[in-house]
């Protein structure tokens, strides 16, 4: 399959079942809501070492948020319910409770419970108060700028982590610009985040390492500087490879994001130095979800 001069590899992205949650952070203005959201989703690129993968889903206007203030919708993913609950408690406690004027609410109505205010309320040292409004419980925790308003419980659902595609280009800059274009289009979609810096990752990994302590190591087959020294997947024209990783609340949302992203890359095409699209997988043995590139783009 070739689209606009870009060869689509006959391969698939392998993704994993995760637990995902949507939270809505509001604040006095968009700037402060973003400060809090950026902190909460910071250092959350890969579950391998961060405990969670997270990102900003979208900005929310005051008429969309529970308390009528500007807001940010964030998605957080982890490998298990237990880990997600731990990550949410830490991240909300350190990054939202601490952020001036902030409030935080559940973004999903269905799913398994994740304590928010239920555990954070103890920061109030007995001065915290709860309010049940329209069937939902909230906690008001006194803080130095007034009150931190936090919903008692949020909801988490079964989700998908690790949808991906690789952009193979003539040069590093061409690969990067194509990925930037893809990210712009993908960020318009609901229920997904691209957790790496700017949505793009350069250090794709393979399972295992020559060093016993490491469970993953650089994907040498896609490293252009090793083309002649390893069993490379790259021909002599490929100068750089970048990857876009997608986490989503549903299988369909990840698939849609991959399609939108890959089509954006294909629009740039061979004229822009894009040669191939490929994907990362583990032979289909590890992940519950497979996203075949040619099926998605047909």
């Amino acid at each position: 399959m070739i689209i606009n001069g870009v060869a689509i590899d006959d391969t698939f992205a392998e993704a994993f079942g995760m637990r995902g949650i949507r939270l809505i952070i509001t604040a006095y203005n968009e700037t402060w809501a973003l400060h809090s959201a950026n902190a909460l989703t910071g250092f959350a690129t890969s579950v391998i070492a961060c405990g969670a993968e997270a990102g900003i889903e979208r900005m929310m206007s005051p008429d969309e948020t529970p308390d009528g203030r500007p807001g940010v919708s964030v998605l957080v993913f982890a490998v298990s319910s237990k880990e997600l609950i731990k990550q949410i408690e830490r991240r909300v406690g350190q990054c939202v409770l601490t952020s001036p004027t902030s409030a935080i609410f559940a973004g999903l109505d269905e799913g398994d419970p994740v304590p928010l205010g239920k555990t954070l309320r103890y920061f109030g040292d007995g001065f915290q108060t709860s309010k049940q409004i329209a069937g939902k419980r909230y906690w008001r925790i006194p803080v130095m700028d007034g009150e931190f308003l936090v919903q008692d419980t949020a909801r988490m659902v079964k989700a998908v982590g690790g949808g991906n595609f690789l952009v193979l280009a003539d040069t590093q800059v061409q690969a990067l610009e194509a990925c930037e274009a893809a990210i712009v289009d993908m960020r318009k979609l609901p229920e997904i985040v691209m957790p790496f810096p700017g949505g793009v990752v350069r250090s794709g990994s393979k399972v295992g390492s020559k060093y016993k302590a490491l469970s993953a190591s650089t994907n040498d087959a896609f490293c252009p500087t090793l083309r002649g020294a390893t069993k490379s997947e790259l021909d002599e024209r490929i100068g750089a490879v970048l990857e876009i990783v997608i986490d989503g609340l549903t299988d369909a949302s990840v698939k849609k994001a991959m399609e939108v992203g890959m089509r954006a890359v294909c629009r740039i095409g061979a004229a822009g130095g894009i040669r191939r699209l490929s994907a990362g997988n583990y032979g289909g043995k590890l992940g519950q979800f497979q996203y075949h590139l040619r099926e998605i783009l047909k």
Partner: protein
Amino acid sequence: MSALTFTLRSAPAQRVDVGMLNPAALAGQAASDIAAIALNVGKRAVRADELFDITGDDTTDIVFRGDCRTLERIGAGMKSGRVTVDGDAGPYVGQGLLGGTITVAGSAGAFCATGMKGGRIDIAGNVGESAGGAIPGEMKGMAGGLLLVGGHAGDRLGDRMRRGQILVAGNAGDYCGSRMIAGTIAVAGSLGAYPAYGMKRGTLIFNALPAQMLPTIVDCGAHRLGFLSLLYASWKGLPGPFGALDAGACTVRRYMGDMAVGGRGELLVRG
């Protein structure tokens, strides 16, 4: 089907407990069975059809007509459906209400909504003393649901209230929110003396300070409280002044008390 309607033949001289004439208790009963239900008038047991003209057959929609001021416990304990009183009602309207709606076109007597846990009660007129309050011997008053009062409320509104919301469009009497444990009471009109007497937790929302405040209520200053925007938004569309509140107008003067009993309750004065 038409509403099951109980029209009083004449106002009883003594109080009558009509708590069993609610949708859950009457569901599936034949008209003859409903007519034969024994109601106590003083020490005399009378058949329901001796007291009322009974028409209609929809047990989920019950209407009381006539001078109902001596009828007690209208809609008590009901779980769903609708009860309407076409005039004034007696005491204990909606006692222990779990769900459904009760609408009173006139006023209601004392202890309206006592022990209520869910559902909604609309009183177009006034309510007597201890609306949403605990009856003697009970540790808790209202424990959930919504009580809307279009007129005025008597003394001890929400006494020992545990949860739920009471919205009063008119004035409230003395000791509003006395011994309150939790929940929310809002009064649009003026207040009697000493609100929040013995109040442990919960929220009282007023438009103005009462004439007499307890010395154990302390001023915490004017603040913007974010939860009010959610609260006001949840009231949007309700009849009366609370349904039209601006959800963005969340700045209030906050008083805390009653410091004699822990002082975690709050009085919020708008404007």
